[in-house]
């Protein structure tokens, strides 16, 4: 079978949920990946959406975080203050899965505004949504976004959501309870924070991608980890499940 770079990204994002029990799911790419994981490697994965659903089991990929099917198939539906206070802030959720507009070398995220240069107004992005507290309070965080110098930048124009702040020890100093971002999955490969420096380092490339391509598409001098791996090609099972999701088809 052949596949696209976006499919590589989503398949690997789904694989990154291996072993997770509960996942707070952002809409878009994270939702596609989390639903794919539930249909392949982690059928028992509890999907939690900020609209207040605990344990959603949608048969079709939802367009929004509030599609009726997310509530209809949930184990429980709670209010928005409750989902953020009792469930997220209380530290009950293993993995937070987020998309992003801009990410820096310490996996901090900007989804608020971009600087478009002198004499031009700031470019407006949607804003924070649930991300600052999802990234603070989940046990760990996964980020998924397309790999480009526009998205992976040397310096954020605005810090909406803290990943590893300004480096090692930053999260502890800020009082952020969770471990923070453990992987950034892109259409070219996977970056993980270096255990010593907390700086995102290329640990995996997808089949057909070279480390040079990933470095060239990154806005900071991206370090390549010793022992760089190549991700396993998508299986037929993964691709079939993903394409059914993408077409809005129910689970096979």
């Amino acid at each position, binding site marked *: 079978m052949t596949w696209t770079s976006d499919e590589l990204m989503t398949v690997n994002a789904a694989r990154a949920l291996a072993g997770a029990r509960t996942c707070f799911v952002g*809409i*878009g790419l994270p939702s596609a990946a989390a639903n794919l994981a539930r249909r392949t490697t982690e059928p028992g994965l509890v999907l939690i959406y*900020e*609209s*207040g*659903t605990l344990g959603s089991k949608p048969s079709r990929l*939802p*367009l*929004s*975080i*509030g*599609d*009726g099917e*997310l*509530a*209809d198939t949930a184990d429980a*539906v709670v*209010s*928005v*203050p409750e989902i*953020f*206070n009792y469930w*997220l*802030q209380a530290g009950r959720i293993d993995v937070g899965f987020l998309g992003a507009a801009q990410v820096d070398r310490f996996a901090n995220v900007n989804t*608020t505004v971009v600087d478009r240069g002198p004499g031009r*107004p*700031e*470019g*407006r992005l*949607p*804003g*924070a*949504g*649930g*991300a*600052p*507290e999802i990234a*603070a*309070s989940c046990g760990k965080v996964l980020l998924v976004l397309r790999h480009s110098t526009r998205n992976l930048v040397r310096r954020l124009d*605005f*810090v*909406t*959501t*803290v990943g590893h*702040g300004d480096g090692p020890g*930053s999260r502890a100093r*800020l*009082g*952020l*309870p969770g471990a923070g971002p453990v992987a950034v999955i892109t259409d070219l490969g996977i970056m993980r924070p270096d255990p010593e420096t907390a700086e995102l380092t290329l640990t995996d490339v997808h089949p057909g991608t070279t480390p040079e391509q990933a470095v060239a598409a990154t806005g900071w001098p991206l370090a390549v980890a010793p022992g760089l791996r190549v991700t396993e090609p998508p299986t037929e099972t993964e691709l079939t499940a993903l394409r059914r999701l993408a077409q809005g088809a129910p689970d096979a």
Partner: protein
Amino acid sequence: MAEIRSLRDAVAGLVHSGDTVAMEGFTHLIPFAAAHEMIRQRVSDLTLVRMTPDVIYDQLIGMGAARKLVFSWGGNPGVGSLHRFRDAVENGWPRPLELDEHSHAGMANRYVAGASRLPFAVLRGYRGSDLPSRSGTISTVVCPFTGEELAAVAAINPDVTVIHAQRADRDGNVQLWGLVGVQKEAALAASRVLVTVEEIVDDLTPAPGAVVLPSWTVDAVAVAPNGAHPSYAAGYTVRDNGFYQSWDAVSRDRDAFLRWMDENVLEGAR
């Protein structure tokens, strides 16, 4: 006690130019019919409050009804940008829009404080984020018991909260279910409350997970069948995802937007 009124009378009586207005509904039960009536009545200079501005505030902002927006996520869910919101913020069209911007957790807790009639709410939030640098309603407070520094967010107490619900009884008791969002808090935080409903029934039979707002917490109930469209009312309608997708093209262009509003919203007044 809630009065059962026409939507036109309820809006005219409860929503005034210059008000702080919260129109809630987290993707589900968004009060579009009431917003369209506000646009037809040319209510203006509003401070609009809503966690997810969505297409409903894109329309109000694009029609120039708002001077300020208090929010936490301004996109077209699953589709992309809110173009009228962006045009107002980036280019001041049709008028400049002041922002007070939060996270979802912060906004939800601001409503909780408002409903509790407390001056602020406490949460573990905003740590390390640049958001507090642009907002006058985010600060910190030290826990008197543990010494932990926590985020403090100012209460929201709207002049009027507008929500859509599945149904009310003839006494004006309101019942909503499914994704109940932050509507109960937004309603109890407000000075005045307007609820549109799919229908008025003789008896409110219990529904799983339902929220009931007793009649004495609501000022007016107006019947507006399909009044959440393109959002939805669980048990009555389904979310019109096609509309949300098509809104991207309509709202991208100022003239196309104005034409759409003229044909689909303002025509209803003539």
